[in-house]
């Protein structure tokens, strides 16, 4: 029994100590990720630490389950509620399943935001998207147009014809097409996000359109397959492959010149921005439609009617920075 009593007094003492300590200084912000050991999230943590350094009075708790399950994240959330952290910024494994646990966190006065992979509306105060469909649509066209000063034919290699994300991006891209005079979209084909089918579709484009100057693939599978097809056809320099890709997969294509540049969100910026938002909301910034909440060097997030915001244009990767990022994600 004496152990228990000792434990109780120690705990009480420690609680008192920590309570007064926390009151005086640091905000504890938990960055909850889908699973530990994923390069993308490790990079986001780097950004969070950068934000913490800049803010000065912030302690980052970087945590997440071992594998990408909602149940694992709920255990993590319960532990964070128990510790009475000031804010939780989560990239959710399941938008709905974690919502009840996060609601409990909010009831106990914890600021909750989601980033990257969102949480259902009732389970968070705001969600930070890495980018918006309009920004992505514009970026993928711009990446191709920037390297075509005289204009010319471009084609899109997408995922499946029913992929929601890709279809919205392509729709946004065609909307801004008139802003790029001389750029001629000749075809949109679908590789179904399968490496071999994407490769064959890209081959088809190369053969069908001899004047093709660029292939735009807004999918990580497609861009990789297209750059391979261009390389194999000996068209490096004639056809530029661009779109959305992962630095680790695209490093070879950038090196060979099949891809001059491509885009994807920058996880460091994302972790940084999420931390800034969590900090500011926890310090009293109101997360409501129309509100503009500052996020340090990333500008400010403007919330839409669903309390969602877009961080920025996708980040462009080329020869100058691919070495740095290819080991990250």
């Amino acid at each position, binding site marked *: 029994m004496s152990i228990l009593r000792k434990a109780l007094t120690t705990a009480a003492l420690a609680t008192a100590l920590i309570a007064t300590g926390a009151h005086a200084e640091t905000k504890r912000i938990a960055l909850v990720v889908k699973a530990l050991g994923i390069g993308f999230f490790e990079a986001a943590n780097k950004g969070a630490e950068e934000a913490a350094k800049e803010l000065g009075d912030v302690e980052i708790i970087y945590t997440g389950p071992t594998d990408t399950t909602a*149940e694992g994240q709920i255990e*993590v959330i*319960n*532990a964070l509620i*128990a*510790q*009475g952290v000031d804010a939780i910024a989560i990239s959710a494994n399941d938008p*709905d*399943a974690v919502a009840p646990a996060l609601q409990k966190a909010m009831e106990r006065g914890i600021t909750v935001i989601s980033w990257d992979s969102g949480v259902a509306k009732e389970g968070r105060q705001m969600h930070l998207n890495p980018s918006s469909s309009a920004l992505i649509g514009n970026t993928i066209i711009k990446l191709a147009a920037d390297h075509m000063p005289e204009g010319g034919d471009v084609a899109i290699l997408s995922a499946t014809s029913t992929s929601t994300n890709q279809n919205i991006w392509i729709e946004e891209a065609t909307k801004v097409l008139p802003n790029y005079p001389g750029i001629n979209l000749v075809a949109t084909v679908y590789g179904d996000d399968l490496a071999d089918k994407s490769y064959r579709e890209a081959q088809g484009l190369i053969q069908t359109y001899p004047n093709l100057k660029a292939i735009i693939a807004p999918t990580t599978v497609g861009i990789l397959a297209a750059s391979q097809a261009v390389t194999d056809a000996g068209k490096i320099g004639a056809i530029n492959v661009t779109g959305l890709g992962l630095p680790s997969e695209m490093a070879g294509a950038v090196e060979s010149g099949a891809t001059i540049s491509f885009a994807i969100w920058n996880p460091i910026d994302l972790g940084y921005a999420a931390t800034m938002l969590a900090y500011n909301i926890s310090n009293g910034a109101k997360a409501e439609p129309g509100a503009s909440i500052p996020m340090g060097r990333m500008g400010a997030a403007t919330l839409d009617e669903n309390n969602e915001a877009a961080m920025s244009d996708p980040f462009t990767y080329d020869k100058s920075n691919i070495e740095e990022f290819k080991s990250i994600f």
Partner: protein
Amino acid sequence: MSDSTHHTARLIPDRLTSPLARALRSWEALLIVVAVAVFAINSFASPYFLNAWNLSDATFNFTEKAMIAFAMAMLIIAGEIDLSVASIIALASTAMGIAMTAGFDTPMLVAVGIGTGVLCGALNGFFVARLGLPSIVVTIGTMSLFRGISTIVLGDEAFTGYPKSFAWFGQGYVWWVFSFELVLFAVLAVGFYVLLHRTNFGRSVYAIGNNPTAALFSGIRVGRVRFILFLMTGLMSGIAAVCLTSRLGSTRPSIATGMELEVVTMVVLGGVNILGGSGTIPGVVLAAIIMGLVTFGFGLLNVPGIVMSIFLGLLLISVIAVPRLIRRWGK
């Protein structure tokens, strides 16, 4: 293997040593020591541990798994195993989602969830008890089958919007900090204790695990007992599916992924011989509490999940190895 000699001893003169000496040397005594140690270490390590509400939250780490572990313990004691339990949860949860979409209310949802579990268990039982197939092969098959059906139905969609009253099973409290799941866990623990340790059925489970042929010749309907055990594992998976779905408020095909191994770990840590023949329900209860406390304690210290897995692995190996080594040196 002195556990099995204990049992043969128990069967003939009832007891060779005094009950107290037996209790002190038992596996459960060791687990109590471990549980107290984990509790004490946690209390020292984190100021947030000794708080009624926090501890109550922590029980959700193990209640659903433990419900299945009770039935799994009996199954393993009988020399069988069911690796499809987590997939049964996925299928039962999907069935509840379909029922919810069709407009049924809470009582019907619970019935559908539990019913699906029982049906899945019956299928496993049919293959093993009736057709005589090895349970590990059958349940590896149904593990893919059940989750596969759920994946076909849902794809990357989810069922959400369960009725408010349904949330009570996973999020409601019976009294003060005692959640419905915790109370259910306690009631089931008592129920399974009585079933395994105080009934003829429980006795026959041990007999089958130790020697199915001898059990058969002594008049035990081995096939029927096995079938009932699979039915019970399915039933408990169905109940766990109701609780988990209610707690998550949604269904996705990935629900409860990997839970079967945690359940088996719990059972083995609880002192059940993986080869069958011995084990107790109190041991499983203690193992469940230990696993829950360890997970929660590490969570409070923000220890990365992988370290937690390593620790649980080491705990499992040491709890099993240490008593055997002591016995060997003692000779």
